[in-house]
């Protein structure tokens, strides 16, 4: 019997996995943003001495994974599983970075929801007794994403106000069966929600209903309320998606205004950085979680945080064929205390 299940979409860990190490690498634009002081390494040049953007992203993820393991006082040989993903076709940033690191590997594609998808699965593997140490990671790069999903960098087009800016960066979290926390207590796995939005320049609005759905099931399954959290932070809904979540949750009877924000809103300053509706990409939640959230938990600003990365699972092919965008959100509860 599945004794660790709560309600319809949530699991509660018997032995909550501890976050033993974490690390973030971001690009120069993210380093100019409001969260600058929380990132471990800020690149001066987003090509990072490589000959292609893809290679730069691969190096970012590889270095980030190694540094997070190192941060937790372990070596690559101590790690049982690497669970990671990115935005590129066939998740090459991850496959190629994993090539350099000899750890049994599960590759994920959850689009921008990858960080909490990897944390969810990593935590289940650790709590299930299948591993002692698991490293979870995600990355994205503005320039690799632009050339795959949109236009060449030097093409003189205008971006819409509802469009978002892919974060260049990588974040990695080391989960362990023992440790002093913070701990992963609950995981709520999202369902695909398709609100019928077809505009790829309006991802926040496309993903917001998926975020609301996961939040509703999270609160119902556990029987908790938003105010039980010091911070509820979604992955990359941006300014438009954040407003929609607050609106829709209010209609469902939940007031999120005092503790809810979005990583895509926090990572850039929309007035000075020209990022329009905010940040997006796997690295948006990965960098904000492994930088800002975990460091503030360690400092004591937050005791209990719900991190919920959001993903849009479309491709350029599905969009050109006129399909709407299927979206998903996975929520993970991080608690400073074990009990």
């Amino acid at each position, binding site marked *: 019997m599945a004794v660790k299940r709560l309600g319809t979409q949530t699991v509660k860990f018997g032995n909550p996995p501890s976050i033993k190490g974490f690390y973030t690498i971001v690009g120069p634009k993210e380093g100019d943003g409001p969260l600058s002081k929380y990132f471990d390494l800020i690149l001066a040049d987003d090509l990072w001495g490589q000959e292609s953007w893809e290679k730069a992203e691969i190096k970012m993820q590889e270095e980030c994974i190694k540094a997070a393991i190192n941060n937790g006082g372990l070596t690559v040989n101590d790690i049982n599983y690497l669970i990671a993903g990115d935005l590129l076709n066939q998740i090459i940033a991850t496959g190629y970075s994993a090539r350099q690191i000899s750890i049994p590997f599960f590759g994920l594609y959850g689009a921008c929801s990858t960080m909490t998808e990897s944390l969810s699965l990593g935590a289940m593997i650790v709590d299930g007794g299948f591993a002692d140490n698991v490293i979870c990671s995600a990355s994205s790069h503005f320039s690799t994403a632009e050339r795959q999903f949109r236009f*060449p960098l*030097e*093409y*003189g*087009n205008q971006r819409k106000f509802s469009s978002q800016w892919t974060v260049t960066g990588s974040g990695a979290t080391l989960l362990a069966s023992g440790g002093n926390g913070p701990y992963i207590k609950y995981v709520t796995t999202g369902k695909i929600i398709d609100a*019928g939005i077809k505009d790829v320049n309006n991802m926040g609005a496309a993903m917001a209903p998926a975020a609301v759905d996961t939040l509703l099931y999270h609160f119902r399954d556990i029987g908790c309320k938003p105010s039980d959290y010091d911070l509820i932070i979604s992955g990359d809904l941006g300014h438009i998606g954040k*407003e929609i979540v607050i609106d829709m949750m209010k209609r469902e009877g939940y007031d999120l205004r005092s503790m809810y924000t979005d990583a895509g809103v926090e990572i850039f300053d929309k007035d000075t950085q020209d990022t329009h509706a905010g940040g997006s990409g796997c690295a948006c939640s990965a960098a904000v979680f492994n930088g800002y959230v975990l460091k503030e938990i360690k400092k004591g600003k937050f005791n209990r945080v719900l991190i919920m990365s959001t993903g849009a699972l479309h491709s350029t092919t599905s969009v050109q064929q006129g399909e709407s965008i299927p979206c998903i959100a996975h929520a993970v509860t991080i608690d400073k205390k074990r009990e």
Partner: protein
Amino acid sequence: MEKLNKKEYEKYVEGKIPKPTYVKNIIMAFLVGGFICTLGQFILNYLLSLGLNESSAASFTSIALVFLGSLLTGLGIYDKIGKIGGAGASVPITGFANSIVSPAMEFKREGFIFGVASKMFTIAGPVLVYGIGGSVIVGLLTLLFKGR
């Protein structure tokens, strides 16, 4: 969320999107596009003053503007002009040059055949197909109705 009304949601979302700054965009497109065209006229007049005939001068003007558009793309300036000027920067022939040079630069890493050469027309391709196709149709119609 399974019972979300997609029509209602779409309408609700529309209200959440900041409205494009049409007036500012139109003025900037006029200024930038106007400047590029004035520059073209300036080159044309100069060439004519050198004694070139009209059709050669027109060809050389296009060549000069395509060169300028390509150069500014290569220097990383044309995307900024495009951001400010919008259609004013993309409709003139300099914008056409930008639409070809930018993917050629972007996909250089994928090699000269499958990168540069095959990606070169990803943006300009539709313009060429429908531009040339349209001109053939107009030509045929002219031939049919206007006679010789």
